[in-house]
């Protein structure tokens, strides 16, 4: 079974540019999460999809961040325009339907550097 994949693995962009990160969850997983760790800080939750619907986006830092999950499959996270403080590692995770205990499977992350 393929795990959670993320693309690209690294991205270096200039301040003010736009970047789109992609996450492909494990097939059949309805739940998809985005997290990020900015330099030297904790991993922080960004948002949670159940299929194509946003269940919880309380962690999205501001309106420069837009997440989508078309058709309930892969998800994209767009940062526009990027700022220096957006640099960090963005993780995606997926899990099965929220019935009982479950685990979130994490991807390897996308390292974003804004210069």
């Amino acid at each position, binding site marked *: 079974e393929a795990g959670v994949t993320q693309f690209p693995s690294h991205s270096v962009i200039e301040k003010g540019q736009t970047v789109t990160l992609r996450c492909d969850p494990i097939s059949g997983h309805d739940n998809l999460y985005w997290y990020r760790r900015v330099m030297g800080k904790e991993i922080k939750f960004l948002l949670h999809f159940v299929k194509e619907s946003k269940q919880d986006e309380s962690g999205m830092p501001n309106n420069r961040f837009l997440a989508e999950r078309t058709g309930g499959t892969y998800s994209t996270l767009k940062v526009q325009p990027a700022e220096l403080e957006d640099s960090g590692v963005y*993780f995606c995770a997926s899990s099965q339907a929220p019935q009982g205990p479950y*685990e979130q499977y994490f991807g390897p*992350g996308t390292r974003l550097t804004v210069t």
Partner: protein
Amino acid sequence: LAKTTQPISMDSYEGQEVNITCSHNNIATNDYITWYQQFPSQGPRFIIQGYKTKVTNEVASLFIPADRKSSTLSLPRVSLSDTAVYYCLVGDSGNQFYFGTGTSLTVIP
């Protein structure tokens, strides 16, 4: 959202048992306790999950007292490859996880 508190770092010699304790005083009735391991440049990897008492799998044991306000991850006979950051997470199914600072474990030869 229940927050967790763990020691920032721990050192252990190879072959020893390591116990990492996590405090989660405001854990909710529906919350499960989950431990993840993270190596540099990788995403967190699931180790073990429990609700109460004791859970054991092929890599670790998880001890949870009756009040569930803390939990202890036990790694038997650690090796150098167990050097990593360990996160204790508390959450309800379907909800976000809160990642604290984690515990950086260093295994010494």
